[in-house]
């Protein structure tokens, strides 16, 4: 079973708007444990622009596209530094994968990306995926990894998307296709719920269905 986790940096911020390392540690613990339970995890994480701006001492987040791209190049290193540090605590290997959204439409790229991710998952590594902002502007304009999450799910045939909810210590479980209702799950019940779902839907073909052409039909709200 494969799950794409969609992580927005605002879920890792404290109330004063600064990066909260404790929250990232919590996230890496929960994801490592999911991985340990036998589920393939792919993490699509934003945060490069935020951490780049913080690293460069910016008072405000960059607005122009070019500025965002440059700041993102600085921040992506920071982002991976933190992920690596916290996953290391729990002995979980992580890898950086930067993709552009033509990864689905371009057959060569699709094959390359698919093979890379397949090998990483078979080694129980968690790929940490972000848009390659230096060469692409699809999600940077949206300030959200919305398309990237769906592309990655498509690429590896993941049936479930997990997103951090605004609510404290809760996750949203979003199903591929529209036949099951999205769920809001407590962090502590995450593994039980997912293995429950796994048992219920095994053999059910809807998980292998493609996402609808119109991505906006997939709701990221509970």
């Amino acid at each position: 079973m494969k799950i794409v986790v969609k992580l927005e940096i605002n879920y890792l911020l404290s109330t004063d708007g600064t990066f909260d390392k404790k929250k990232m540690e919590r996230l890496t613990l929960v994801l490592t444990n999911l991985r340990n339970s036998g589920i393939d995890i792919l993490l699509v994480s934003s945060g490069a622009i935020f951490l780049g701006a913080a690293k460069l001492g910016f008072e405000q987040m960059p607005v122009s596209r070019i500025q965002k791209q440059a700041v993102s190049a600085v921040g992506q290193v920071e982002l991976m530094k933190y992920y690596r540090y916290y996953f290391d605590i729990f002995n979980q290997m992580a890898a950086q994968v930067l993709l552009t959204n033509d990864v689905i439409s371009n057959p060569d790229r699709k094959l390359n990306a698919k093979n890379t991710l397949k090998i990483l998952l078979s080694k129980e590594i968690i790929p940490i995926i972000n848009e390659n902002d230096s060469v692409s502007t699809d999600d940077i304009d949206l300030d959200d990894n919305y398309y990237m999450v769906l592309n990655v799910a498509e690429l590896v045939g993941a049936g479930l998307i997990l997103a951090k909810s605004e609510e404290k210590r809760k996750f949203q479980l979003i199903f591929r296709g529209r036949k099951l209702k999205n769920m809001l799950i407590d962090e502590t019940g995450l593994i039980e719920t997912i293995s429950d779902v796994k048992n219920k839907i095994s053999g059910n073909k809807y998980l292998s269905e493609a996402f609808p052409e119109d991505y906006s039909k997939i709701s990221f709200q509970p």
Partner: protein
Amino acid sequence: MDRENKLSNKKRIVVKVGSSSLSFSNGRINLQRMELLASVLTKIRNEGKNLILVSSGAVAVGGGITGAKKKPGNLAEKQALAAIGQAELLKIYQKFFMQHGQLVAQVLLTKDGCTNPMRRINAYNTLNALLKMNIIAIINENDTVSTRGIEFGNNDVLSASVAELIEADLLIMLSDIDGLYSADPRRVKDARLIPSVTHISPELEKSAGGSENSFGTGGMTTKIDAIKKCFEAGIDVILANGKDPEIIYDLIKGKELGTYFEADNN
């Protein structure tokens, strides 16, 4: 005295957690369960109880680090994974206990640590000193030097030896079964949980031994051996399911959970 009263007087407690309670069915370590266990034990220690933890899990952690796809087959492989995993296991325990400000210590013992007179005194002194300092000792078998062909990953008898050594009042053994059953609950439909036992009869021993492989990973035979050892030393034992570590709160309050093995001479 009823169970509630008896258990409220237990001050020195050894908690034994088996690998089945600490890992997933694929053999990988369950971090969130370790975290919860650390939180529960710290709270109980803060209530004034003296605690010692006998924990498996080194092989599971070692398997995760090396990316082993299968559970180790032979003894040497298990010993190697345990050596890799033990250091990491303690690192993770330390982290989870320190989240609540609880200090821990690692103590690795072999069987003769409890039988050889010189080693016994040393082990006793070390554990006592740690208890006095309010530190929770985390004990495991010293797998690298154990040569007795003991089945690794099973600390049942070790936990009883530790309980006897430090003159514990109670040994709590957490496994992946709810307690002792009248028959194998996975095969016999009307098997019932036995709430309390005061005497290990040959019949009981036989029925437990006959269903060896289906009772937890350690099997029931080694658990009965451990309980007999505790009975000889007048120590009570509770056998319960470790899937929710918070069960320990209820067990030390005397709630009717698991199987309570009551040593008759105390």
